[in-house]
């Protein structure tokens, strides 16, 4: 066998391997799409009786009555959005602070312990957060924090309605706080990683020009890592929207819409977790699956909004990560 033949055979073998490799990665990608498609189809199929029966009223009404078999998802949607937004408001500044501290300000010996602590926080199962929220956080909120909020913030004009009501210790506020604690590790870990990718040269040039740490962070680090930050924030928001166990413990599981953050409510995933086992009529089960569809749509909308934001940032030439 000549060396040319051997080389040709070697090439053919390589091509075959290449083809198999390519086909298998394609198969993996297609499998994912099939799975996603299967989820969507079976969700829609299960939810169809509810959507068919209630039409738009399923989204616009807040009745949830198993006795008369009438279901509307508005209170669950409201609770999902309110708790998630509250969690983002509480978690964002803290996560940002953690990331800035870890990348710019912390002495090297402190970086590792704090970083590991954040990763540990991310590894705690959500049911632990739920139990902690119910047994530790809720009594504190009920006995000291919420009476104060009701007495002081509740008297403010305009926003007062947000902070009025009997202190249950369980409700939107408690759920928002627990969710915030749960998503802080995710957001801060992503933001820290993105901040780490900012080239030292850029930062050093900033400092060299006489900029303060504040100025370097806001004018160099943040603009450079904006798209990555948005990714981290969306990851946290996605987790907050779908979180089930921890929220079920502290939200109060009441199908109602209240202006007050101190009142009990429910979320989409909490309602499903609570009621699925005992949903005795087909329409009831179907309505719960329809709630699942809505959560799917909301999560998808969040991801789509994030993509759009990144696109617009990219066009303005600010996103470089």
């Amino acid at each position: 066998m000549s060396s040319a033949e051997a080389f040709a055979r070697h090439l053919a073998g390589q091509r075959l391997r290449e083809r198999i490799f390519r086909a298998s990665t394609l198969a993996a990608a297609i499998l994912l799409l099939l799975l996603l498609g299967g989820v969507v189809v079976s969700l829609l199929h299960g939810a169809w009786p509810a959507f068919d029966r209630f039409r738009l009223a399923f989204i616009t009404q807040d009745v949830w009555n198993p006795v008369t078999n009438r279901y509307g998802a508005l209170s669950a949607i409201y609770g999902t959005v309110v708790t998630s937004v509250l969690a983002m408001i509480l978690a964002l500044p803290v996560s940002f602070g953690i990331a800035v501290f870890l990348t710019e300000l912390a002495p090297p010996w402190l970086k590792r312990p704090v970083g590991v602590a954040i990763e540990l926080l991310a590894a705690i199962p959500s049911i632990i957060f739920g139990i902690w929220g119910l047994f530790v956080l809720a009594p504190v909120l009920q006995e000291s924090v919420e009476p104060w909020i009701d007495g002081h913030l509740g008297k403010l004009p305009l926003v007062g309605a947000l902070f009025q009501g009997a202190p249950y210790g369980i409700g939107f506020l408690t759920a928002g706080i627990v969710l915030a604690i749960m998503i802080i590790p995710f957001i801060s870990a992503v933001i820290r990683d993105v901040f780490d990718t900012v080239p030292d040269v850029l930062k050093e040039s900033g400092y060299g020009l006489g900029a303060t740490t504040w100025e370097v962070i806001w004018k160099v680090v943040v603009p450079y890592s904006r798209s990555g930050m948005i990714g981290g924030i969306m990851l946290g928001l996605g987790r907050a929207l779908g979180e089930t166990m921890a929220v079920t413990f502290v939200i109060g599981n009441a199908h109602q819409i209240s202006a007050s953050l101190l009142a009990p409510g429910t979320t989409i995933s909490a309602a499903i977790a609570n009621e699925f086992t005992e949903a005795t009529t087909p329409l009831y089960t179907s309505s719960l699956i329809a709630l699942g569809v809505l959560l799917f749509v909301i999560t998808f909308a969040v991801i789509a909004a994030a993509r759009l934001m990144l696109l617009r940032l990219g066009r303005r030439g600010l996103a470089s990560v």
Partner: protein
Amino acid sequence: MKGFSLKSLPARFAVLALASAASVPVFAAGQITGAGSTWVYPLVAKWADAYRTKTATQVNYQPIGSGGGIAQVEAGTVAFGASDKPLTSDVLRQHHLVQFPTAIAGEDIVYNLPGIQAGQLIVSGPVVADIFMGKITRWNDPALKKLNPGLALPDMPISVVHRSDGSGTTFTFANYLSKVSPQWKSQVGADTSVAWPTGLGGKGNEGVASYVQRIRGAIGYVEYAYILENHMQYARMINSAGKLVTPSLAAFQSAAANVDFTKAQDFYVILTDQPGANSWPISGCTWQILRTDAQKSVNEQVTQFFLWGFEQGQSMAESIAFGPLPASTVQAIKVYWKQNLGI
């Protein structure tokens, strides 16, 4: 690790021995499966444990909730389902099912009021209905004061706690309120879950119990066994005879004594708000549901197990606050089995 593998060796041999008996049918001799009500779970578990040591028959019971129990027995995946809400004769016939009662139990109002001890608070059905409809919102409401002249009721908001999941406990509670309050009947009604006009929901009896213990000024309803276990503050109630009663096994059985299970078709009987000076107003029962078209040998195993429980497991039931069925009812159940299952 060594200790672990040594320990598991006999277990592995046992598995092998089981696997080698490959010809066993789905419901193997010595194995019966059931699912349903969480309420009756402590009783079935206790009976099953004693029954296994006596007869080597193993009863596996999954407390997945009454709705789940009904669905699974309809689908034929379990030999029996347990529900705290009886099915009507029409539904039973339509799905080829039969049902019979298991034991009598009760539930009560629990509360969290500083300075007020267990059994001190007195409530009546209409007042409870008004509280759970959000019409009575403070503990020092005149209606509550009138029932409790000797108690220093605090000026505190009432936090209503109900079940967030569907439940036979809720069905029994709402059924009672429907009987004593026309407004509850027309606006809320009775089912395993209802559209609560007010309050917050806890998952399971334990969820309601822990919310009530945690929230000052809270009121809720739980099964009597949970009150005993958690030493909760419970209320005494005015029953339909206008008498003041304390929750107890005797009071639940008194409610059942006023009902003739033997005359009701398919034992469809609701034990709430029964007459009788000693009757506890919120008494309830759990039904076992079987398929008429299941293998006869499977149904036989199930009925034998429950018959053993009715006859031999009475003191076990009483020890966990379940009232045994009267002998006449057990006799009627035997006749019912004969007629419907040929057993």
